[in-house]
């Protein structure tokens, strides 16, 4: 699966306002809702569910990244938001370090294969030091889109 196919352009937040996990998730989810990628009527339910999911096991798996996610029945396709923080977010990371890149994925409930393929694409790239560094250097949504396009075309090693 290509990251370019699931990224919601208007939900690329290159300068997250908050440095707290819950507020960052709200900021990114609201961007998805404003872009029409996630139904506004389920916004609060999805928000609480993502937070609940985080308390059961942090998705900040180390190396300055976090991948909060949730499956909801109202979703037709997958929607990805990306949030970047220059100062770092307190995300209860497994390595106790701040998080600089957040990938928020909302998936349909009934397409587990697509969800797994999206997580594969996200993890394959986030596990690359080069990708993480370029992401932290991105200043605009277009910078991020260009990087995702390069990643989709296997240009990032």
């Amino acid at each position, binding site marked *: 699966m290509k990251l370019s196919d699931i990224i919601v352009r208007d939900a690329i937040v290159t300068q997250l306002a908050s440095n707290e996990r819950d507020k960052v998730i709200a900021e990114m989810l609201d961007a998805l809702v404003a872009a029409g990628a996630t139904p506004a009527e389920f916004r609060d339910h999805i928000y609480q569910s993502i937070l609940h999911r985080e308390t059961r096991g942090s*998705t900040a798996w180390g190396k300055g990244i976090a991948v909060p996610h949730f499956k909801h029945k109202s979703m037709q396709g997958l929607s990805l938001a990306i949030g970047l923080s220059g100062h770092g977010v307190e995300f209860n990371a497994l390595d106790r370090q701040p998080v600089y890149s957040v990938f928020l994925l909302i998936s349909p409930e009934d397409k*587990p294969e697509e969800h*797994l393929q999206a*997580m594969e694409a996200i993890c*394959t790239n*986030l596990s690359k030091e080069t990708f993480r560094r370029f992401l932290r250097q991105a200043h605009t949504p277009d910078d991020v889109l260009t990087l995702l396009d390069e990643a989709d075309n296997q240009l990032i090693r």
Partner: protein
Amino acid sequence: MSARRTGTIRIVNRLGLHARPAMAMADLANTFASAVRLRNGEQVVDAKSIMEILMLAAVKGTELQLECEGPDAEGCYDALARLVANGFDED
């Protein structure tokens, strides 16, 4: 003394090897001294890394090779194989 134990495991839970199972698997693997790898054809990942496990995108029905190597390879293999066979207690 170092031992090695390998075998085939099958993903049986409906949602496949998604984040929560991957986290459970890495957590359990990290309680053992043995090196733990998962193989799917040419692809080999470190089962102590959540992100690497997720790179398998293993849907329900996928068969993987589980390889444990180290002083506690037997116990490590048995514990992980049981976790997977139980569908990570999901469904």
